[in-house]
């Protein structure tokens, strides 16, 4: 569900950029050059984000960390090491 909402959010965001970007940022929103720029930007940025997101949706392997890194992450990023 979270995955679906994230994809919907970013898709709507970039669609809005493509549609309303020319209106908000230029005085000639109907100029073909401006529309082409915003539409292409939205498409390539959305697809780039999507590939990055899907690549991590189901990771097939995990990161290999050394002990020092695990301890640093535990203290810095709030991933405490369990006792035992």
């Amino acid at each position, binding site marked *: 569900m979270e995955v679906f909402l994230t994809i919907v959010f970013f898709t709507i965001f970039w669609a809005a950029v493509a549609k309303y970007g020319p209106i908000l940022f230029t005085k000639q929103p109907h100029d073909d050059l401006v529309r082409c*720029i915003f539409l*292409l930007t939205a498409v390539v940025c959305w697809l780039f984000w999507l590939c990055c997101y899907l690549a991590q*949706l*189901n990771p097939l*392997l*995990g*990161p290999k960390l*050394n002990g020092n890194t695990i301890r640093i992450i535990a203290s810095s990023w709030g991933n405490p090491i369990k006792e035992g």
Partner: protein
Amino acid sequence: MSKWWSCGSNQESNSIFRSEVMSLVQMYLQPEAAYDTIAALGEVGCVQFRDLNAKINAQQRKFIGEVRRCDELERRIRYVTAELNKEGHKVLDLMDDFPPAPQPREIIDLELHLEKTETEILELAANNVNLQTSYLELSEMIQVLERTDQFFSDQESHNFDLNKMGTHRDPEKSNGHLGFVAGVISREREYAFERMLWRISRGNVFVRRCDVDVALTDPKTGNVLHKSVFVVFFQGDQLQARIRKVCTGFHAHMYPCPSSHSERQEMVKNVRTRLEDLQVIINQTSDHRTCVLQAALKQLPTWSAMVKKMKGIYHTLNLFNVDLGSKCLIGEGWVPKRELELVEVALAAGSASVGSTVPSFINVLDTKKEPPTHFRTNKFTRGFQNLIDAYGIAGYREVNPGLYTCITFPFLFAVMFGDMGHGTILFLLGLWMVIDEKRLSKKRGGEIWNIFFAGRYIIMLMGLFAMYTGFHYNDIFSKSINVFGTRWVNVYNRTTVLTNPTLQLNPSVATRGVYPMGIDPIWQSASNKIIFLNTYKMKLSIIFGVLHMVFGVCMSVENFVFFKKYAYIILQFVPQVLFLLLMFGYMCFMMFYKWVKYSPTTDVEADTPGCAPSVLIMFIDMVLFKTETALPGCDVNMFPIQKNLEMIFLVVALLCIPWILLGKPLYIKYQRRNRPAGPVEEVDEIVEKIEVTTGKEIIITEVAEAHESGGHSEEDDEPMSEIWIHQAIHTIEYILSTISHTASYLRLWALSLAHAQLSEVLWTMVLAMGLQMNGYVGAIGLFFIFAVWEFFTIAIMVMMEGLSAFLHTLRLHWVEFMSKFYVGNGYPFTPFSFKDILIVVEDD
């Protein structure tokens, strides 16, 4: 492509999707108004004149005399400029606010002025040489008089006659007394000089010499001279004559030199006085020359601009036909259609300025000639259009890839260059040039600077997109930032962590959702990050590459529709795009499907990470009809009907090859068989009637040689064998290049990997060293190490890596993208424009 993109038919749009609609206009100029009219057109700068006198050599054209006069004026301007450069004044060409083209009668005044200035400078130069020569001689005499003191003090004890004035004049015969000759000789000649003196006198001369320490200057060349003072002591008149000849032969200058000390002192005083007087005269001459040059300096850029404009006008008039019968000049030129009104206004202004009662006018001709290609670029699109034009100028009205390059170019660059830190540096550089562009456009920085400045919007966008891709790669100078909180948690307890030096997190239990934007920051610290990033970036490269190529193939539809070759949509476009999509589009689908299907948390054993197949191996098996042996518990297929679907895709893709090969030639063959017999020869005659002042009507027939005959396209005249060969070559090229170009897009991954690793090496080997230092010495050391790191960051990571990524992006556009649809066989529109003539890039 949807109709939304077809903006070629919109005449009012400012798009560069297609080149401007061009018109061939025929101009009739009144002779008295011709000069002013061409001057007005030069200011507007939207007419590219055709040469109607191509068969006439340059020396026989009508206005060759005027062109020669302008050449002479330019020569004089260059001479004065060179003289000013000698004085240390840099003559700067105007960059804006150009003066209007001068009237022919105004140029007479300029001619006289320049002639006077040049003559004056030449006379001053000649006078200066004379004065400098005299100065040199007197300087040398001073040296002779001063240096010979030590010579004579040695000789006075030898019964030297103190009353003699030296033997350069009529010496008295004195038995037993020594005579002498004194002078100055070049240092490089003095040894040969001495040897010669010994030979002619059989060793009976005594030579003394001394170097001249003061630097002397050659009056003609300005070079520094190195000379020596010499004195030759001898006995006898006969020997004296020989010695003087030797001195003359070696270009030694002989000077009078009294033998008594008191007389030498008196002579030195006199010569010094003359030297001082001469120096005053030289200074006055130099001041006068400076005044003359200063007077010219202020006006020289204006004169230069005026002469260039005038010369350009006469060169253009030489392209016109001179019709002696009806007393008018006839010219032809290409004009963008929407600027025809400007041309008419310029013609009216030209006629009005001379008060001509007979107007000059233009006719729009209908012609089969290929017009030049003109894109109305602005400061933003000009840089991108230059990138495309460097590969080839678009054919007339051909789809222009420059429009889409505005975004695809900086984006593909950013995929390779992705790093937020380096991207920010690049963005700020471009932003500075954009914000400050009014001031910087007047800067004279040389050719390299002009290239960078012309590409400032490219640089800014490349930096901006590199920040975006860098954020997703989670890479800032090779370090990551934990913006949204890592989704990986450590599930090992303390004992396990302390016992094992390295631990790998299990994705089935160690993940808590998906990192929403970009790569999870934990990967930057992982020792196996390259494995993970490589699989991600390789898939990314193929996906964007295939999309880019499909986009390019789709552009060919735009051309087919526009040029009304609808059959080629079925015969060329459909099989091409089918081949691309069924083979490599399917590969992209497999990539996405693999991302979604195989999960570490699945309940189905066949969908676990261990069973995830390699997309590349599956693709190869598809082509080779092979079947892999599935691991225990795994399914050999990604989805149930995969084998059948792949078989269908492969068969259809293979059928596309003969489709591309045979479709077009067979269609052309069929078309020719159904064509009416014999080509219809159309003679392109234009009959114009011109009413002159006398009221007579004169008919002028423009013969066919000025225009192309016939109404055929290139294809209709090509023999069938050529068409078959071309189509075979095209088919082979397309099929093979689809495969090699897909592989070529992997450079997006390769350069991205190289950039990231280089950045990490720079951090690890340079800055990290400074951060590990301790104490106050460490703080000071870190200061310098940071400077080194920053220098390498800019010099290597931004400049060199940026250039490398730029060139690879350029190749991806020129070869991989544009080869799908772009012909690029046009020629550029080069209008007669004063701005183009006057704004010249300086070679520093």
